[in-house]
């Protein structure tokens, strides 16, 4: 049975990993998707389902960390227009 603590840690790790992307689109998507994913499974009570969701979260964390390295090798040359402040 996974407790609340590790789940919150996993959420934080995913958010931190997703924050490293240099590309605006995938960075926002990672943040949006992790929060949505955790909120969706917030009220699960079945132990096996909780374990399943936690295992999937861990898998996704590995994926994000691997893909971040690829993205960092080819950073975008210009800033995305969504990142510019309104003038």
């Amino acid at each position: 049975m996974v407790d609340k603590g590790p789940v919150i840690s996993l959420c934080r790790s995913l958010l931190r990993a997703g924050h490293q992307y240099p590309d605006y689109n995938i960075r926002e998507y990672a943040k949006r998707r992790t929060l949505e994913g955790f909120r969706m499974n917030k009220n699960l009570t079945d132990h096996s389902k909780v374990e399943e969701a936690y295992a999937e979260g861990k898998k996704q964390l590995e994926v994000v960390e691997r893909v971040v390295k690829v993205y960092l090798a080819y950073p975008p040359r210009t800033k995305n227009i969504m990142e510019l402040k309104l003038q």
Partner: protein
Amino acid sequence: SKLPYNPPPRIYHATLKRVLRKASSFQSISFGRFQSSKRIRLQISCAAKPETVQKVSDIVKEQLALSADTALTAESKFSALGADSLDTVEIVMALEEKFDISVEETEAQNITTIQEAADLIEDLVQKKPTAQAS
């Protein structure tokens, strides 16, 4: 005796005296003395500045989608404002981004009120320049 810097001649004598005094009393500076001055420094930086508290309140209002005129005091608990643990994680990430700091896992779990967040932020912002200098 050569000083590592060139003070203006006016205060040369005073700084020379200070350097020599420090050098001669080096043996007598105990770790106890050093620790007590460190303790005093921590006490002074205990309370956070009002601007920091205000910035934290603005971020909290934005993340929890509260109306602009909800009164937020420094002692408001996040849970009382309707935030669950995931919302708290989101708030801490937003604060990390805004103030360009990195909050540890254990420290982040202890944040329950706006005042605590502001205190932690000030503490980390203060430690940052020294880490960059070294």
